[in-house]
């Protein structure tokens, strides 16, 4: 065998040394140090490490932060609402184009299907915590120079350069809103299906996020398609690349797939119940339920 056995030196030592027993087991020198015993002996006794007279020796020191009467530091500095309303601020997990390209290269994300937040979470590319005020994923343009994948991706926020990089490679990007309950369901669909509840309608964005999602520049899901087409051409002119024509692609059908404004999953409508044990989908037939779930 050309490769010598691993750990040869330690094995040789083990062969030569005597048998291990309680007699020859002990800690490494310097590993165990004796504890300090106050009030005993020449060094531990006398004042027992408490100093000479005063509050120190008598154990009567004032509270932490007291500065002898001078206004203490924690009162001098004025209050300011840095963290005020922190639980009402939506947070977005960043996803770089570098990471997206890496996931596609390693086969963890399939570019021949629309890329959703569920696909990104299933590939363990991002970790979303909907209960910690996360509202989704934010596509960031780091690694835009090396990005070369044609994808139909749906994120919650995207920077302008990231949108340009995706469209330059012939892909489609959409930004859409998920309310916290829908986001929980989107990130972890299987525990939701096991609950046996019907798929809920996705709620519309509130008034502060509505302008973002109705703007074609952000490729918002509520923006008009004609304006999105204009914005695509505008962006190509700004960044100086030729916008490829996706209508002539083989994957055009996949690239043009989009979710409805109230739909959480591709292919599954709100109101349906998924039975994973028997691999069936139960759909309601009552008119009132159908009109409720199909209304916008």
């Amino acid at each position: 065998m050309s490769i010598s056995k691993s750990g040869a030196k330690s094995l040789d030592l083990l062969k030569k040394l005597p048998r291990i027993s309680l007699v020859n087991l002990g800690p490494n020198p310097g590993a165990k140090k004796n504890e300090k015993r106050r009030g005993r002996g020449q060094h531990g006794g006398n004042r027992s490490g408490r100093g000479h007279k005063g509050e120190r020796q008598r154990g009567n020191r004032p509270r932490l932060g007291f500065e002898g009467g001078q206004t203490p530091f924690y009162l001098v500095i004025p209050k300011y609402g840095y963290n005020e309303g922190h639980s009402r601020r939506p947070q977005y997990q960043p996803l770089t184009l570098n990471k997206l390209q890496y996931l596609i290269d390693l086969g963890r994300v399939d570019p021949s299907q629309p890329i959703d937040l569920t696909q990104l979470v299933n590939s363990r590319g991002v970790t979303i915590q909907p209960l910690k005020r996360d509202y989704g994923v934010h596509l960031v343009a780091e690694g835009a120079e090396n990005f070369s994948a044609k994808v139909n991706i749906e994120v919650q926020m995207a920077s302008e350069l990231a949108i340009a990089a995706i469209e330059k490679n012939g892909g489609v990007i959409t930004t859409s809103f998920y309310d916290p309950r829908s986001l929980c369901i989107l990130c972890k669909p299987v525990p939701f299906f096991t609950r046996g509840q019907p798929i809920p309608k996705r709620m519309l964005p509130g008034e502060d996020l509505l302008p973002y999602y109705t703007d074609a520049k952000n490729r918002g899901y509520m923006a008009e398609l004609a304006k999105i087409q204009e914005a695509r051409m505008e962006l190509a002119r700004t960044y100086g690349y030729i916008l490829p024509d996706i209508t002539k692609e083989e994957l055009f059908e996949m690239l043009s797939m989009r979710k409805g404004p109230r739909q959480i999953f591709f292919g599954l409508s709100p109101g349906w119940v998924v039975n994973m044990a028997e691999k069936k989908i139960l759909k309601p037939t009552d008119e009132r339920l159908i009109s409720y779930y199909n209304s916008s």
Partner: protein
Amino acid sequence: MRCSLYALNRSVVMANMALSCCARMKNGIKILKATGNFSRVGAKMQANYCVSASSSQTYPGITESTEEYKYVERLIPPSSVPTPPKHDQYPTPSGWRPPAAVPPALPYMVRRSRMHNVPVYSDITHGNRKMTIVRKIEGDIWALEKDLKDFLTHTSGTTPLMQVNEVNMSIRIKGSFDKDLKSWLLEKGF
């Protein structure tokens, strides 16, 4: 449902008929009247579990379908790390390269991690002490240590301190060399 019927006696059941017009309760009472036996009521009700569109007005009907189940299958997360697909050109746009098809003829071997990456990691303690770790080594670890020493002396000028852990089969190097070592190992074909 079943427990409540068992607990009530006949007269209370009759009185309750007027109050609760639930179909299941009605069926249960019918069976009770016919058989006079509480135990048969529960059995019958269980048999009628799948509510069809033709039953009472209170429970809306459902239809079952298996066509759209393929969309559900797409949502199930994979239980193991997928093998990377074959590309035409290496390195891939993200800079990844697979290990060489034939392992190099060296006395040691450095396997890929479970995510198919080169097992070189950087460590930092006390905020300023940077180290590099090479893990997943098999074979003659001392030969690898010698080669690493030669390579790093050549690139950085000084000989870095290295610790060989024979039990874990890993090498810890003082200083941060993770990019250099990754490219060096990739060149070797690991």
